[in-house]
């Protein structure tokens, strides 16, 4: 699994992606990790099929005792179906995820890890000396959904927003924004259900100072690409299955 350091100051952001051992028919996912002091947060740790690659990759950078927190943006299997395994490996960790999904996410197995449900309005989490914000992104696409913003690193983890469906060997970063739009269009039109929710999210995140936007699938947005994405997304009509059915 490819691992790359995205931000390195008093705390660090890593991306783990493009797992060559992943079975072909499951969607490729990007996992992220924030390390601050002796604590860390793994964002959208992934499905059960990539668990062993994830564990091995994380332990290249930090010892297992320092994997202290997990975050799941929503309840999908590619986000958190590995929970039952993490539950055995890091039993003293805490899971931050939408509180609304508790009864559903517990189906993946959560006997030891402490379940910390995030209220609809969002909240904050301190990892080591770093304070992260949970930004509501409800109905994008999941009915209870959060993103994570780091005001120091100016990084927004945007879950399925900004996702693109691409081959396994594609670059981690956008090289040409215009051609990249073609790879994002259907995903956003079909998976995102609500133009109203989209406008709500745009209004919220446009107030944030963002230098890097990290989606859970596809490529990372840097610098002006973040604003370009927001303009593109604003103009996009989503929820198209209703028109086609």
């Amino acid at each position, binding site marked *: 699994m490819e691992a790359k350091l995205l931000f390195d100051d008093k705390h660090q952001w890593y991306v783990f992606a493009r797992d060559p*051992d992943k079975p072909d028919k499951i969607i490729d996912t990007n996992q992220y990790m924030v390390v601050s002091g002796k604590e860390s947060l793994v964002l959208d740790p992934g499905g*059960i099929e990539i*668990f*062993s*690659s994830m*564990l*091995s990759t*994380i*332990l*290249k*950078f930090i*010892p*297992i005792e320092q994997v202290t927190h997990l975050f799941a943006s929503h309840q999908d299997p590619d986000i958190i179906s590995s929970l*039952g*395994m993490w539950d*055995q*490996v890091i039993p003293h960790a805490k899971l931050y995820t939408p509180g609304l999904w508790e009864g559903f996410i517990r189906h993946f197995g959560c006997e030891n890890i402490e379940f910390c449900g995030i209220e609809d309005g969002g909240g904050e989490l301190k990892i080591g000396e770093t304070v992260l914000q949970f930004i509501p992104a409800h109905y994008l696409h999941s009915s209870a959904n959060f993103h994570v913003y780091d005001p120091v690193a100016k990084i927004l983890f945007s879950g399925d927003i900004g996702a693109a469906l691409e081959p396994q060997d594609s670059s981690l970063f956008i090289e040409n924004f215009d051609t990249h739009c073609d790879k994002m269009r259907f995903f956003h039109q079909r998976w995102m259900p609500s133009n109203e929710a989209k406008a709500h999210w745009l209004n919220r995140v446009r107030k944030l100072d963002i230098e890097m936007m990290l989606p859970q699938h596809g490529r990372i947005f840097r610098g002006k690409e973040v604003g370009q994405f927001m303009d593109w997304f604003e103009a996009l009509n989503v929820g198209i299955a209703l028109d086609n059915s």
Partner: protein
Amino acid sequence: MVKEYSPVKSAITSSQVAGELYRASGIARQLSLAAKNSQAVVHRAGSKVAGLKVISEYFADLALKTIKLAEEINRISLDISHMAVERWRQNTLVGHLFDSQEKNENEKVDQIIHVTKRKQLDINNRFNIEIRSLESQLEEIQQYMQASRVVAVSFRLEATQTDEYQGILEDMANNIDIFSEKIKQHVLDAKSHIDRLLMSNI
């Protein structure tokens, strides 16, 4: 009877070993660079350090072997980690199937249990073989590092007999020593992770 280790501990251990060897590989590349530098110095010094020519060649070869072996161990550890997770999933499945049988005995489910247990046995055997082979490869890399430190001693000895190259050769000897010691430490840590697993009970 083949010993069975906790699949949870096995998955953690193999990932820890992969992590240690990933770090060791990085240092091995620095060691290789030191080896190339030493060859360049020996070449430049010519007859003044004639005794080091063979040693520096041996050292360059050793450094390359170390990189290769560290990467190989890293790869095997990842395979073992996948295997441990697979075994873990099978164990969980068997546990659930037994629960199901307790509630409502069914012949088909019994057959599935039988097949899964056979797979469990097979994967457990493979796991045990791989973990032993991992141990012996860690031993081998440790021996490489001992040899590497002998090279450092030779450089230091030779350094005392030259004026012009004394400082460079001493620096090289120190670098070789430091890199070898660091790699050795990662290997020892990897071995102690394995030892803890082998001494544990399921």
